[in-house]
């Protein structure tokens, strides 16, 4: 369907830059490239805004290693969560095909880092971290279906329905969604050193956040409004554009961060600060994506550039102009940083660098 084109672009947006480029470059080299960009851009910020940046970013924090270690841990958890060969084998194979396709695991990293920043052990939040990746994968599997975006390729590999057929792709998504909730709610998913008294109530609250953020007032709401708008030819007002991004992209980042903070034992005030942080970087992610679409070549992006313009999609540069869009991105980044100000600097370093990474990625 014609309107699917916009959604296609938007869903790629959500995925491509956070996860390895579609060309499937080996993880280590792509991580290295990001790190390079990140450092270069970071220094540029320091030069441009000496008052804001340096105090917040401990120079010795090794973002590259942090992300690599977290993604390895999360990949192991995901691998164990869906055992190979358990009957029905083909359904579990389809789940594994989609879930273990690689990726930077930014959402799980946010969840673990949020647990850490409020003083929890990151291992406590490993189950919710794996769950958000399952939900993320599920949303991609369903987005790619012919009745939605009708996408044949994702991350350089044939999409789930191309390999296994549409019916199994629908089931694969449903099964991943259920597995996510099972993983979060199941007592066996957590290490023995959690606070046995407070932990069950925390998990209940975290489960609520996950469900709320991905349901008809979260992720799905964003997809619905996006679908409704893609048919229309009029320019989408800024408010509506923000609604879509806050729901389609920011909601799952919010769930990731908030679940981590809850499991880590954060106070209500800390949890709400981190929620604001997540909403800022979620929106930031989309603003940056819109900017990259008009400023980078297809080669640099690893996907088709200028697609938003070609498809007549409403973007931030179109509504605000390029310069104002950049200013808006800087504003969102500084909003996110501001929410981290009250936390221990060392513990907040991963979240800070995740925000920089989202702001200054080049593809």
């Amino acid at each position, binding site marked *: *369907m014609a309107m699917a084109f916009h959604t296609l672009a938007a869903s790629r947006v959500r995925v491509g830059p956070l996860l390895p480029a579609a060309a499937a470059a080996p993880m280590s080299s792509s991580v290295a490239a990001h790190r390079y960009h990140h450092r270069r851009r970071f220094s540029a910020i320091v030069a441009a805004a000496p008052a804001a940046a340096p105090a917040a970013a401990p120079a010795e924090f090794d973002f590259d290693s942090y992300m690599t270690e977290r993604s390895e841990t999360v990949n192991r958890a995901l691998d164990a969560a*869906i055992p190979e060969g*358990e*009957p*029905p084998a*083909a*359904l*579990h194979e389809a*789940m594994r095909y989609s879930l273990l396709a690689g990726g930077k695991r930014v959402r799980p990293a946010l969840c673990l880092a949020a647990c850490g920043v409020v003083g929890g052990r990151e291992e406590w939040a490993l189950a919710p971290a794996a769950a958000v990746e399952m939900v993320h994968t*599920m*949303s991609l599997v*369903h987005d790619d*279906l012919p*009745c*939605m975006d009708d996408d044949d390729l994702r991350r350089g590999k044939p999409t789930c329905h191309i390999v296994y*057929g*549409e*019916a*199994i792709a*629908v*089931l694969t*998504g*449903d*099964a991943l*969604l*259920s*597995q*996510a*909730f*099972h993983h979060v*709610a*199941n*007592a066996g998913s957590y290490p023995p050193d959690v606070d046995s008294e407070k932990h*069950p*109530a925390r*998990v*209940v609250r975290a*489960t*609520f956040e*996950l*469900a*709320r953020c*991905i*349901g*008809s*007032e*979260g992720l*799905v*709401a964003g*997809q*619905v*409004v996006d*679908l*409704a708008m893609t048919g229309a030819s009029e320019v989408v007002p800024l408010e509506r554009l923000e609604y879509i991004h806050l729901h389609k992209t920011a909601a799952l980042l919010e769930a990731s961060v908030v679940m981590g903070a809850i499991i880590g034992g954060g106070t209500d005030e800390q949890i709400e600060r981190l929620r604001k942080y997540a909403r800022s970087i979620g929106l930031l992610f989309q603003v940056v994506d819109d900017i990259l679409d008009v400023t980078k070549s297809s080669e640099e992006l690893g996907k088709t550039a200028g697609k938003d313009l070609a498809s007549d999609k409403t973007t931030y540069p179109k509504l605000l102009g390029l310069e104002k869009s950049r200013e808006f991105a800087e504003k969102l980044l500084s909003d996110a940083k501001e929410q981290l100000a009250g936390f221990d600097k060392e513990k907040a370093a991963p979240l800070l660098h995740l925000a920089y990474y989202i702001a200054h990625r080049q593809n």
Partner: protein
Amino acid sequence: MALSSIFLPLPLPKLVSSSRSHRLLPVRASSDAPAASASFDLRRYWTSLIADVESELDAAMPMRPPESIHAAMRYAVLPGAGKEGAAKRAPPVLCVAACELLGAPRSAALPAAAALEMLHAASLVHDDLPCFDAAPTRRGRPSTHAAFGTDMAVLAGDALFPLAYTHIIAHTPSPDPVPHAVLLRVMAELARAVGSTGMAAGQFLDLAGATALGEAEVMQVLTKKFGEMAECSAACGAMLGGAGPDEEAALRRYGRTIGVLYELVDDIRSASGNGKMRSNASVLRALGMDRALGIVEELKAQAKTEADRFADKYGDRVLPLYSFVDYAVERGFELQDAAAAP
């Protein structure tokens, strides 16, 4: 396709009050609960439960922005305006009955019961999609994708899954009388039952054509697609009612057995020309009618045996459990007999 679709549209069991069902009930009635079983009115019990579940579901899904998705979700879960669209709500009914058996208040189980129905409806919406069963209608009206479009139907299903969990958490009286740890067990149970080793496995096996194979494969599909959901319903009710491990295990076995029993009887009805033909009516081709009838008797005996475990301790409160078994069997054969002798 899970339990509630198996149930006939209302009107419900005239069977309980008919002479036919009385032939079966006295097995229990004569020994443990002579007077009460005759006076127990399954129809009234069921009707009052359905009313409670319906109002719980209605309140759980207010119309709010974005309206299109909420309209699709309501359409998928709530019955049409009267007539043949009414759903039997078997999963929630079983859940509440298990909870009440143990003496716990209905309010402890109602939110989970509504959640069961949401999960159930979500899987039905996806099961009806053009790439699956391609069902143009359900419960006598256009299926969700026919009414709202395929893309909206996929999203409505996707949104009903999480709604089930937010609803349980927001509305179950917790931590008192339902402790948080129990709430978590209930949610894990629900997620397992609809997941890759539960109902989704059954749908997958059905897709893969297992119902065209031998008895073992057919029974596996029935168990996964229908037995798991009913087991989950009974297990959730058991947990919310504060069951001990033995009671929970017995109610699980009871639920699983009765889920398969309902479906098998339904397929027998379909094969004998009553009721709608279903995609898995091939169950009967694989089993043969004689064997299918034999399995019905076995399942019935098993379910009654499980219910027997509660008779001494809980007295009349076990009666709904017996009546479900009788209803499952009786309605089928009554219709079959009617078809045989028009």
